[in-house]
């Protein structure tokens, strides 16, 4: 899986969790650039992503993420190990 294909797969998850049906994601998209991506929404996103990819994140891994691209890279790394 490539970073871009993972970001494409993340779009429906983000749209559902953030209740924004037209939301588009890019690698540089971050919480500060998306309305409604607050701390509780972030928890909801993380849980939804864990379920979608059947992976488990550690808090330290998540704290190091700056944007959606970083999340996609982390998912790729996790999925390739599982």
């Amino acid at each position: 899986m490539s970073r871009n294909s993972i970001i494409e797969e993340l779009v429906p998850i983000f749209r559902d969790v953030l209740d924004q049906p037209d939301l588009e994601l890019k690698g540089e998209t971050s919480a500060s650039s998306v309305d409604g991506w607050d701390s509780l929404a972030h928890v909801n996103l993380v849980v939804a992503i864990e379920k979608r990819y059947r992976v488990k994140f550690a808090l330290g891994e998540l704290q190091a993420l700056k944007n959606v691209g970083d999340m996609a890279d982390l998912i790729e790394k996790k999925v390739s190990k599982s």
Partner: protein
Amino acid sequence: MNEYRWSDLKVGLDAQFETTIGEDAMRRFVEISGDVNPLHMDDAFARNRGFPGRVVFGMLASSFYSKLVGVYLPGKFALLHGIDVEMKAPAFVGDRLTVKGQITHLSDPYKRLEIKAAIINGEGKTISKAKIRAGVHEPA
């Protein structure tokens, strides 16, 4: 009150309790919510709508999901994040209700648990189903 900490929780852990919604609870819910819809206030109106009597407020019955989380699962260190409730059937004043829930998912980074829950009446009929999201905020 249960005092489950994050490390105590496992997928499949469950809890349940029984309760009855009486006249006093109905009256106090009206005072708090301001919902004076006659379906909940007027027996004749409710019967004309095809019900055997006044229907318990759906949100009053659903308030027991709060107790499920705050008292039982996980209990003392709970912080409710969200509940999606689906009303399946009416409850009536005096019904004996069983409120039950089971942990379906645990997410470590933010100590988030998810619970599949339901409220069942004395005849075994499901009054409502809920998906509950809660955090565990335990002392260090």
